[in-house]
């Protein structure tokens, strides 16, 4: 079974990041939200594997949780 790849996998990370931001340039918040949603759907379909998608959703949710204060 394939699982979510969370190791670096993108060639030219800075270029990719700049491209992602460029895509949103000049868009209103609503237009950006819509674009992100379309992008997520396109990528999700490309991945297709429901287990991998679920892992990705969980990883995204976890990364947004507030770190537990320790002590």
């Amino acid at each position, binding site marked *: 079974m394939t699982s979510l790849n969370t190791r670096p996998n993108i060639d030219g990370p800075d270029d990719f990041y700049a491209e992602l931001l460029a895509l949103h340039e000049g868009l209103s918040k609503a237009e950006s*939200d*819509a674009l992100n*949603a*379309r992008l997520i*759907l*396109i990528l999700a*379909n490309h991945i297709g594997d429901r287990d991998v998608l679920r892992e990705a959703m969980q990883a995204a949710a976890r990364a947004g949780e507030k770190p537990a204060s320790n002590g």
Partner: protein
Amino acid sequence: MTKIFETPLYPYRRSADQDARTPVRHPVVVIGAGPVGMAAAIDLARHDVPVVILDDNDKVSYGSRAICFAKRPLEILDRLGCGEPMVRKGVTWNTGKVFFGDEETYRFNLLPESGHKRPAFINLQQYHFEAYMVQRIRELQEEGRPIEIRGRNAVSALAEHDDHVRLEIDTPEGPYNIEAEWLIACDGAGSSTRRMLGLDFVGKVFEDNFLIADVIMEADFPPERWFWFDPPFNRGQSALLHKQPDNLWRIDFQIGWNIDREEELKEENIRRRLHAMLGEDAKFELEWTSIYTFQCRRMESFRKGRVLFAGDAAHQVSPFGARGANSGLQDTDNLAWKLRLVMEGKAPESLLDSYSSERIHGADENILNSTRSTEFITPKSEISRIFRDAVLDLAREHEFARPLVNSGRLSVPCTYDGSPLNGPDCPELPRRTRPGSPAPDAPIANGWLLDRLGDRFQLLVFAVNAPERLEDGGIEVETIRLDPDASPELRERYLGEADGAVYLMRPDQHVAARWRHFDEAAVIAALRKATGRE
């Protein structure tokens, strides 16, 4: 000309029961002459189980209600002997179109699978549907079957006893009492039986209103289902157009939660909406207009002692997906044979608990599907709307997004996976006919498989040896030998790669168990399991 929905079809007549000194006891009483109550009664009476239907009204259903009837209920109606006139009268459709904003996003074809006697759907007004059922009841009466329908008999009180239920009934000539050994409550979403027995009906109300108009017009729209998201004539909301027989069109407008009902229902306002949609010079007449809110809910259990709940009385769904009447007919399909075996003393009363568990499985599936459709059609949060619109924007160009568009997942029957009645499976055989599944139709020599199935236990035998008939505890099993090559569909649906198989079929045309070879002891064990006797 008086319209069908204005004519009393079962006018009040005094019954001898009203003059009896002590309440007359009936084997089965059905409350409610809606589609579900009539189906239950017809099913039982065909097998000579005496049944009395009580309804507080005397006419068919009033107003805009069900229009879409799916293949499985049509198959059940065939078994009951009233499918043919409905299919003949109904409009068959296969194409759906989805619009988003000003344009058509895509169209789909239901691509009906080959090798079925009945189409995927017909559209037929609920009042026609009910009138055909009343006609079937009259035919059964002419054949001398023990079925009776009493109009303007409103059940007003119930008392449960060990071996019967006592009913108090109001009529135009005053109240009377009868007793029922078994009571089937098909008295609709507002079920007074449920209330009188103090049972809960919990679920979720969708905070939205729908204006539904049935419009008579000569229009050359094709018989297709058109669904709009955010159309110019109903901004931010949805709309639906669907054809019914007799030049009647069903139009739904989503109109939001905070509305002025009275204002919305004014004819001039409805006409204004319709002209915006159909064009300024469209000519039409309004048959009905109403505003509905929708909900999804079900009872905890569909059985309470001698009272069995079916149809909207037991569960309610929003109409996206046409699952209301369609699932109610599947309830009675499941219930009738079980009740019959229990009444004949051939199965324990506990068999009726499997009615509740199997149909709760079906109701939950319907509620899940219709809740999801409702969320897509009427997104409840900002992010839900963002994703919904993203799906619709993508669907125009990208095929992958089309299966995500949810304008109602049209009713399909459920498979009773995990039912206590299911016997052994044979994994070599096709998955779609596993135990618990409704038998898919297929062409056979001189006709259709489903025309041969139902009403009793049967053994479908494909290219293996098996006796003509079997019997256990007074329950007979009839053998039907089938040539696996009668049609490619038959082979594909029942055998797959295997050369032979044996299927034990329930009286409701669902698969009870299946094997590669015949083994009498195994069949008898499965029969006992399927009748709750193990």
